[in-house]
């Protein structure tokens, strides 16, 4: 639904009070911070109302008016709170400029159906604000970690220097610590050794089994599937406890092989799920065609089937990799100090609250997960293209 609805300018009596209400809300927060909430509401509401009216009615060009508001607020903010105040002020000014004109020009009506009542329009936008708030809830914790990892102090919180954007408040020392501290390096090295080995195991077994499972006549398909998926469903603490008892009995507890086997078992469901999903769209007549032309099953597998299901295999592998790379409960029990992985080191750090090096590691891990996410997304699209579905 693109711009179907004709829009028109709205009367002052509609938009100025609305903008004023928003200003009052902002004023409330600033007011309480300065000592008097009531005064803040009053001043905020009045100032914003006056500015909104002036910008829409007095300034001839919208662009000039909005820039003016942003600069005005930026100046005011800078006067009160230095550089960070200026930035916050500019954002504030930009928002109010946009908000005033959005209401004044009636643009809020442009993209929604013309027959909606004002109440429905209000609900439409409130709903979006609610969704926005939930999405902010989802993403904020991850965003907060990143700047904190550049903290120059050993605190888990923003220091006044950081808030002033003082370069002295920032440093790379936690990253330096991560790259020089032998504990962390040892843990990183262990993770790098364990995760790929576990991934290779689960991908090779898992792909074969997924191909077997997707053929037409498999007896007990449902129960086999249930068993193979179970490592994903059984709570990790139970898997960890069971493996701890069993592996120590057969002498695998505290060994590299034990941890790899345990992680491979945990990664298998992901491989099975992604590869069977890819195989659903696989055209069986292709293998028959290949056989018809004289290819033996092995050649058919590697030359025909494998390239087509490759995206699914790789994304299953990535899931298995991240499962192992992220896993802490099982390695806590099955591993010993010699197999201390990155998550384990983070876990001990968090429990004993040692240093923001954890946050530096967290930032690096977020970077890795962004890279993995991008890869999986690209693979998904490629897979859908290969299978002739239109990428959404």
């Amino acid at each position, binding site marked *: 639904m693109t711009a179907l609805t004709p829009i028109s300018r709205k009367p002052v009596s509609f938009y100025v009070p609305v903008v004023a209400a928003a200003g009052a809300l902002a004023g409330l927060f600033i007011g309480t911070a300065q000592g008097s909430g009531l005064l803040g509401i009053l001043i905020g509401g009045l100032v914003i109302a006056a500015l909104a009216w002036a910008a829409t009615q007095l300034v001839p060009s919208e662009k000039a008016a909005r820039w003016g508001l942003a600069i005005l607020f930026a100046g005011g903010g800078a006067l009160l709170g230095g550089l960070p105040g200026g930035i916050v002020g500019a954002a504030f000014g930009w928002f109010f400029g946009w908000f005033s004109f959005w209401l004044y020009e009636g643009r809020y009506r442009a993209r929604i159906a013309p027959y909606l009542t004002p109440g429905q329009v209000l609900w439409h936008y409130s709903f979006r604000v609610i969704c926005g708030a939930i*999405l902010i809830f989802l993403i904020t914790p991850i965003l907060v970690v990143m700047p904190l990892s550049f903290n120059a102090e050993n605190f888990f919180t923003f220091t006044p220097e950081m808030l002033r954007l003082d370069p002295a408040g920032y440093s790379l020392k936690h990253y330096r610590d991560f790259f020089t501290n032998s504990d962390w390096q040892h843990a990183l090295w262990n993770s790098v050794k364990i995760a790929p080995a576990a991934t290779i195991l689960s991908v090779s077994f898992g792909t074969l089994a997924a191909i*077997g499972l997707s*053929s037409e006549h498999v007896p007990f398909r449902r129960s086999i599937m249930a068993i193979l998926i179970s490592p994903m469903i059984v709570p990790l603490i139970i898997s960890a406890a069971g493996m701890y008892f*069993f592996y120590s009995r057969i002498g695998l507890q505290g060994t590299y092989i034990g941890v790899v086997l345990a992680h491979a*078992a945990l990664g298998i469901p992901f491989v099975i*799920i992604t590869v069977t999903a890819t195989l659903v769209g696989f055209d069986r007549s292709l293998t028959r065609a290949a056989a018809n032309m004289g290819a033996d099953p092995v050649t058919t597998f590697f030359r025909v089937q494998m390239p087509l299901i490759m995206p699914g295999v790789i994304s299953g592998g990535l899931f298995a990799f991240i499962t192992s790379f992220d896993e*802490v409960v099982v390695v*806590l*029990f099955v591993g010993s100090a010699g197999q201390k992985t990155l998550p384990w080191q983070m876990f001990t750090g968090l429990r004993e609250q040692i240093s923001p090096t954890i946050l530096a590691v967290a930032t690096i891990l977020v970077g890795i997960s962004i890279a993995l996410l991008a890869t999986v997304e690209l693979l998904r699209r490629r897979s859908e293209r290969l299978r002739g579905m239109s990428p959404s």
Partner: protein
Amino acid sequence: MSDTEAQAGPVLAADGTPLKRSLARALRMQKLRALALIAPLLIFVLITFIAPITDMLLRSVKNEIVVDVLPETVAQLQSWDVDSTAPPSEAVFSAFYIDMVLAEEQKLHTRLGTRLNYEKTGLSSLFRKTGRRVGRFDTDVYTDQIVALDPAWKEPATWAAMMADKADRGALPLTARTWDRWADYLNSEGKDPAKTKVEDFLFTALYLDLAAGNAKSVADPRIAAAAAAAPGFETVDIRSQFAKADKDWLDPAVWQTIKIFSSRFTNGYFLNAVDLQKGPDGIEPRPESQQIYLMLFKRTLFMSLVITGSCILLGYPVAWILANLPSRTANLLMILVLLPFWTSLLVRTSAWKVMLQQQGVINDVLVWLGIVDDAHRLVMINNQFGTIVAMTHILLPFMILPLYSVMQTIPPSYLRAAKSLGATNWTAFWRVYFPQSVPGIGAGSILVFILAIGYYITPEIVGGTTGTFISNRIAYHISSSLNWGLGAALGSILLGVVLLLYWIYDKIVGIDNVKLG
């Protein structure tokens, strides 16, 4: 045409076999090939995953330590009445003496004490204390008297030779059994039983056999001589020896506990896991001060429900907007959902620790805004609130993704049709859209609930004492208190709940329909 074919008999394949059989063979081959492809993984999962889980389940009912460490005592206790108010007879104490000395040599008595302490407090220290004394009991009286008959008794070689003789063994059953256990232990330590000093408890066992009159007709003259002299020996009251070590041994309750838990399998751990215990009169509730597990189970269920509820509340609007926006915008917003999903669990947990703590980001902002007084910063971590917030955040993508995939299949025209037929916004949503999205809610809720109920890491880090789950208790029993049986029983109950939910999920959604990303 049909005439000629009917006369030719069944349809034949190219190689001349009937087509039906040929097809059946091809089908069988296909099945076998599929199974051959699945087999390696199935075996792998069975060994690395299913076997450990089964092992854990068995561990929750296994109780071999009592009968393994105290075989003679358990045999003697058969004739003792559990409801008796008097301590068992001298025979039981004699058997117990032999078992205890052997256990003390192998340092098993402390483990046994720890095991029995789960059922009756105080037994651990009782066993430890007695273990220190049991080697110094006055049973050397028997040693001295038997050695006085023939100095050869002192030689380990004599004993080794005697215990190799079938007739002698038959005449001295208790001595033979005790010697075997002793010799097994020495061999496992790399010592030679034929060269190790013969301890008092072996002489005691020998005396008990002799006094029982089993050895009268034995051929070996040395044994016959001892058997003849035995009735005249000065004796030691082993029961009073134990009573001197600790008067609790005369308390029948101690023996009740040993007797009740002497079977190889027990439901004791499961009873403990639901705050019950086995008493002499059957199953009874545990002392009030030790009842925590039911409360923990209830708390785990309650918090998982709250988390599932908040995930529905927060996930539904987001899934709706993702499903109804143009796909370009929706894909962009999807990144905001998928990024947390892909980010390490520990990163997200540490982020919440950073945000929620008293000197954390949220409190700082609230203080700066003047909403909260600096002296009264909110306590949002190390309690239930912290766990619920952090876990809702962590599990929210698991709710949004299934909801989104269901909502994508609901045509938006249905809502418009409902409205054009006169439904209000609310009616259109509640009567038309919502019922179609229920499968998504069901799938997401079960997934979130299954994941929440067994969570360990997040409650451990942000849960403090009031926000922890049953899984934290399981971890505690396995790594700290070493009460593995109880840990396994708690785990089995949790596993049962999860498997039930898994089964429901399979019925509703189908396990093959799980989608990732």
